[in-house]
């Protein structure tokens, strides 16, 4: 049987039946070394440590209790519902914000990313302030809060790809007689599906392991697996039970991720990628387009802006009227005690962690994306492995890190690096999900052209694929930054410095009675919102500049 081989030095594509496997400039396993090592050392080893502590059959008794399975059932149900709801609600937003030329588009995109960052306790209180009391504790509120948090995930991941789809495909379909809906269903949707699946998988992951939201807004019948694991580990020190539940959670998520990864790889189609220029954005002209724009803006206003506005309003609503008392208190509350942390210091610390996290996450996540894209079926193992930290209880990871790196020469506990490491673990999956669909959509022939023009394989990749990836990398970096700014669970656990990060400080303020700490917490939460929005806006601006042909 005759078979053609790709040129080993120019790494062109192989044809195997109907499936094309694009190869990278460097063997996939080389690309996978750094991400795999990172995961092994900072995730697998710590988790293994904590599971080992719980290794005994005592924990299995938990599996016999019906309560455990009720919790599992609820966890799955609310995650599925949250995912479906978020995707449905956010898809129009993804479209409008990435295809319409509207004034302040970039600001809007930054705005919808802010909720993603906020500490869950803060959001919980904001929702409680807005909604009638009997809503609290119901499934509906939890779903609403999940949509609030994850709107940005869909808008950015799906919207990112949508903004780069060649509009001529739709035009071709329309010219062949398809209605807009038919055109969407038969032309746009197949091309968009990988991104939608990626975003859905991520939203499912987040909502499945949702902890803070459920804790704050949930009620008697609404507990998730994550909360249970937290209680067993952090409060009851029932490590065997926690270990059993943690493994159960990981297995369930692993199955879901596997399915999602297969669906994604099979539907990715190489199509000509266009760098979005001003010309590919349309101005909404028809009544239908205007109505869509209005609906999206309205839903963003109600769903996202209103709770945030409530936060800001709370921070300036003093006992009688309005005032800046709480803002001024920020600089003086607890001023004489060891608990005092100047807000500016907290901002600085949070930013430092965020920058380090973003850089690390882009490096590890970018390499992982390339390894997954160029490795074919074997790449799915790495894909799932990268996502695992998101599906593992933060407490498990946090505790694991503590005991794994407890002895010299690897005693990292006193160092500042632990917190960014924990943040990176949850940021890398986001980078991967943002970069991978774009990577898979790049026409491999472009690199062939570069080769014929004399570029060596690595140079060809760096000068052709990498610039096309830049936007996705910046999106990933933005998400990593945002996640780091708002991360609370692992940080509160691992942080060793005297200066707490912003979210930690917000929560500490909330744990005290009295109106001043409460108002100050709202003020600090506002600061957190503003800083994040500014950073995300900056990322948008940075990746917008330097695009040829604008």
């Amino acid at each position: 049987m005759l078979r053609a081989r790709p040129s080993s030095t120019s790494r062109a594509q192989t044809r195997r039946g109907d499936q094309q496997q694009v190869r990278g400039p460097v063997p996939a396993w080389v690309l996978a070394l750094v991400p795999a090592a990172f995961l092994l050392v900072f995730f697998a080893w710590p988790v293994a440590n904590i599971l080992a502590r719980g290794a005994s059959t005592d924990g299995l008794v938990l599996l016999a209790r019906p309560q455990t399975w009720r919790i599992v059932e609820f966890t799955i149900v609310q995650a599925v519902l949250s995912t479906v709801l978020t995707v449905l609600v956010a898809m129009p937003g993804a479209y409008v914000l990435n295809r319409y030329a509207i004034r302040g588009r970039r600001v809007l995109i930054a705005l919808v990313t802010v909720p993603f960052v906020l500490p869950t306790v803060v959001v919980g209180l904001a929702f409680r302030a807005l909604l009638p009391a009997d809503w609290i504790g119901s499934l509906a509120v939890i779903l609403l809060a999940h949509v609030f948090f994850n709107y940005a995930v869909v808008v950015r991941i799906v919207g990112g790809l949508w903004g780069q789809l060649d509009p001529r495909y739709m035009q071709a379909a329309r010219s062949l007689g398809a209605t807009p809906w038919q055109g969407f269903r038969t032309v746009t949707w197949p091309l968009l599906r990988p991104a939608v699946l990626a975003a859905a998988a991520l939203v499912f992951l987040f909502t499945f392991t949702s902890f803070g939201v459920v804790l704050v807004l949930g009620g008697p019948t609404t507990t998730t697996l994550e909360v249970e694991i937290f209680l067993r580990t952090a409060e009851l020190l029932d490590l065997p039970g926690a270990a059993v539940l943690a493994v159960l959670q990981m297995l369930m998520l692993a199955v879901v991720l596997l399915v999602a990864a297969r669906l994604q790889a099979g539907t990715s189609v190489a199509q000509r990628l266009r760098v979005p220029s001003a010309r590919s954005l349309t101005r909404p002209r028809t009544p239908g387009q205007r109505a869509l724009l209005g609906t999206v803006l309205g839903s963003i206003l109600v769903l996202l802006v209103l709770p945030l506005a409530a936060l800001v309003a709370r921070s300036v609503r003093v006992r009688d009227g309005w005032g800046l008392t709480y803002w001024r208190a920020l600089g003086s509350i607890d001023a004489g005690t060891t608990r005092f942390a100047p807000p500016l210091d907290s901002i600085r610390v949070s930013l430092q962690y965020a920058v380090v996290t973003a850089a690390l996450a882009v490096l590890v996540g970018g390499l992982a994306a390339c390894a997954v894209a160029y490795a074919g079926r074997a790449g799915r193992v790495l894909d799932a492995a990268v996502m695992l930290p998101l599906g593992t209880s933060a407490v498990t990871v946090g505790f694991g890190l503590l005991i794994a790196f407890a002895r010299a020469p690897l005693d990292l506990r006193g160092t500042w690096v632990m917190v960014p490491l924990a943040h990176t673990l949850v940021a890398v999956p986001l980078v991967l999900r943002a970069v991978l669909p774009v990577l898979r959509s790049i026409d491999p022939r472009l690199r062939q052209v570069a080769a014929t023009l004399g570029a060596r394989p690595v140079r060809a990749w760096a000068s052709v694929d990498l610039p096309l990836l830049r936007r996705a990398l910046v999106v990933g970096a933005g998400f990593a930054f945002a996640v780091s700014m708002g991360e609370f669970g692992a940080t509160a656990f691992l942080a060793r410095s005297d200066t707490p990060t912003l979210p930690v400080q917000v929560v500490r303020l909330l744990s005290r009675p009295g109106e001043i700490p409460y108002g100050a917490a709202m003020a600090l939460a506002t600061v957190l919102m503003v800083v994040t929005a500014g950073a995300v806006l900056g990322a948008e601006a940075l990746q917008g500049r330097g695009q040829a042909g604008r």
Partner: protein
Amino acid sequence: MRRVVVQSPPVLVAVAGLCALALAACSAASGSGAGTPSPSADPSLTAAPPASFAPATITLLAHDSFAVSKAVLAAFEARTGITVNVVTGGDAGQVVNKAVLTAGAPEGDVLFGVDNTLLSRAVDAGIFAPYKPAALAQVRPDLTALVSGSVGYAVVPVDYGDVCVNIDDRWFAAKGVTPPSTLEDLTKPAYKGLLVVENPATSSTGLAFLLASIARYGTSGWQGYWARLKANGVKVDDGWTQAYEGDFSDGGKNGRRPLVVSYASSPPAEIVYASDPKPTHPNSSVMLDGCFRQVEFVGVLAGTAHEQAARAFVDFMLSQPFQADEPLSMFVDPSVVGTPLPPVFTAWAATPTRSLSLPPAQITADRAAWVDAWTQVVQS
């Protein structure tokens, strides 16, 4: 199209790899002594540390609510030459659990924040190096009794407080209703739908209230009490913040329930943390029946390299400057008898004459079972 044979799902490979690592870690962990440290060949139980030191730095591990005035701490540092690095990370349970997990290779030198619900767990794990300071003689006898005997002075009581039901007086005055005065009152129809409590599984405040009910009604009667509470419309929040700031009518702005499980020190805290002009009296008061005594302890961590300096710090926590600072810094009562209290405390902090309590060893042994049973009764 060629059919592709599916090999074992790659993700299960990844998870299997994880389990293999767990086995490896298991054998590694069993090699290292994760249990009790050997008694060091060092100072006796009561040996006081020297008056001054070569400069040293010690790390204090504490929960998030720990605070001391900088001036007070600075005076200590100047006097002894010890620099104190305060590291807070989580609530009391989390701090203790972290210490238990890292026993033998502790993250710090001194641990503050173990309370009576966690005491046995901590002591059994052997994370402390016992020390009986001279100043212990001035501590309230009922508190000292907790650390003698089997505890062997592993820790020293530093402060105490009470978890009680807080009452919104304004609400009751407006409705013309007499507030409840006993635990049993809370189950009466007059107070239906007015109480909010915290989940004992997720909140130490909630746990304290549960323990109070067990102490009052006994191990066979407490479940009936909670069934009556549930029938009377009790609301359960997952944490103190949600209960006090969210549902308590005197706490946040939207609260509708005038009875909440909180601290005896919440009313004076309300005044201290109010914006100017500060109110002359708090809007809430404390139900003196059914309070549960919470005691907090400090201990020198076993395995520390700075045992002497750590002991000096423990002495400092029992000294008057620190004890007098406690009420306004942490809103707790000092454990040393005769410590002067600030006016807002003497005026508005209620001290129940008889708080409920349970033996720490019993708490540690039965807590999980009690919480499970509570969940069955209240949350099903």
